[in-house]
């Protein structure tokens, strides 16, 4: 099973799960169609499309196995999935820290950390550059949004700042 099949299975599982949830929805006595009417249509279409996707994936697999066992992927460029994982993790930590430390501290840490991950600083100059750019962004966005654009940024529950 390739990516298509897996994606199809996930969609199928989600659609069926949501279809099960529509069973508990209350009906109205004076409106002919209930709140489950439209969701069911959408979800049934989703089920059908997922099944087609899975089926075509399985069928194509058989066919291509009979022809030539060529992978669709070209090994031309190696993709850095580790970095993607780290970025998502750092971002998730930022989202957790934001309401605890407040915008100013959390953003400072986030920008410094992510930039450090992307380009590990070398020597004192590298570290200074890293901190200065993190500080500059934090201060600049804070001042612009809070003072000029009347957008309130999160305050920290732990720090009160």
């Amino acid at each position, binding site marked *: 099973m390739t990516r298509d099949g897996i994606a199809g299975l996930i969609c199928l599982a*989600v659609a069926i799960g949501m279809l099960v949830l529509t069973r508990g929805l209350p009906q109205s006595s004076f409106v002919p169609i209930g709140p489950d009417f439209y*969701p069911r249509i959408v979800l049934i279409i989703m089920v059908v499309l997922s099944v087609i996707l899975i089926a075509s994936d399985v069928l194509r697999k058989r066919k291509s196995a009979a022809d030539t066992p060529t992978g669709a992927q070209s090994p031309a460029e190696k993709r850095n999935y580790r*970095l993607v994982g780290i970025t998502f993790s750092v971002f998730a930590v930022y989202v957790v820290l934001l309401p605890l430390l407040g915008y100013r501290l959390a953003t400072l840490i986030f920008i410094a950390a992510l930039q450090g991950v992307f380009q590990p600083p070398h020597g004192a100059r590298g570290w200074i550059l890293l901190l200065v750019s993190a500080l500059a962004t934090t201060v600049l966005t804070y001042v612009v949004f809070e003072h000029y654009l009347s957008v309130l940024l999160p305050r920290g529950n732990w720090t009160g700042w």
Partner: protein
Amino acid sequence: MFELLLAGIENVVHLKYLVPLFLGTLVGLIGGALPGVTITMTIIIVLPFTFGMDPLQGLATMTGVYVGGSAGGAITAALIGIPGSPSAITTTFDGFPMTQKGQPGRAIWLGIWSSCFGGLLAGIFLIGATAPLAAIALEFGPWEYFSLFVFALSMVAGLTEGSLVKGLLSGTIGLAITIVGFDPIMSVPRFTLGSEFLRSGFPFLPVLIGIFAFAQLMTDIEKMNKSEQTNAPIKAPPLTVSHHKVLWEIISRPFLFVWSTLVGILIGVLPAIGGSAATVMAYDQAKKFSKHPERFGKGNPEGIIASEASCNANVGGSLVTIMAFGIPGDAVTAVMLGAMTIHGIQSGPLFVSQHPTIAYGIYAAYLLAHPIMVLICALGARLFLRVVTVPKSMLIPNVLVLCVIGAFALNNIMEDVAVLLLFGVVGYALVKARFPLAPLILGLILGDQIEVNLLRAIMSDPDPWLFFTRPISGFLLALSVGSVIFALWQHRRQKGRVKESEDPDF
């Protein structure tokens, strides 16, 4: 209409609007010129800045970004051969060879002037066509609306490259996201799993920002290598050129120019497919109609004119669809639509008549953004090349912070930021599974409207055949079936050649 337009221009010329418009155009030009930052990305970055503004200020800023961004791609495309935004790819074909031949000024100004005139010509279409189209849409009942939205979705699912099933499934996922939350008639909470926050459904903009921003940024991060970080500053060549000659080069090819502009407008009007489709098609057309197709790709001015005129004309076309029907013409207008709803403006056929000041203000901003764009380029096109050297390691963290502000500042709740992250993961996963994102976004935008109109139709008359027997509705549904069949036919014809990209399609 002309009085309204003049009043609109008079309105926007005030510093209160002119400054945001100018800044928007400037940021758009920079974002457009930066390789790896698309216009969609730029507008997402700009979005939080518009929350505190009045509606017209915010929309003027975004219009500026849109116009500037569409032109900005040409700068890097022509001067260093790297498209600043996907829609400028075709500009590199002839723009860069021209620069290599020692005519960088000619290459870039052909692009800028073509963008300007293409955009302005599309502006005439925008102003002329929106009201009549909206008037047609006013005649629509719920049946017609339902069918129109279904048609838009099926067409976009069919037009995207790659598998039709995935396009349709992607659209359905978008619809499925919108069924979470209160139902429109009895306000019964659906699929909330007991969450208080989900009762009103997934908030539109955080979902949109999450999907777009992460799909784009993570794809960039995948390709990041430690070695490419040391960007050498690029020396900009002098861009002096005789503007008369460049203008004459454009004016002396009226057919090419007008035809490219029309292609741009047409692609713009079609929902959810944007600039890159327009420029590729216009370039292709220019080559087909040219007496010397062999000159293309070697610094032919016709290639630049076709590409850039259609690119900015596409902006005008996209604005038509959103102003007349409330359907976004592409990802950028989807964000603009979201911004409108924040300011309490319901887009749709009533928009132009209910909010004439804002509607004509947008027209005026659109028209004024073009000369502003030319002015900024005249002052500092060479400076944009400096910006290109900003390393991605610095850019991406900052963009992510602005995405967070954009999601958070809507309602000042952290749940919105969590939604941003959740759909960031979803968007990236979909790109990895090679799903086109355009249908998903359209489904997301139209989902509530589809449900409301479907229910309205059935409640006013339970006969389901009305969807087929009412002439306009039936015609639209026939078109949607037709578009799916056409897509099937086209895929069959290209069997084996269908390319599925692992990069986001915007």
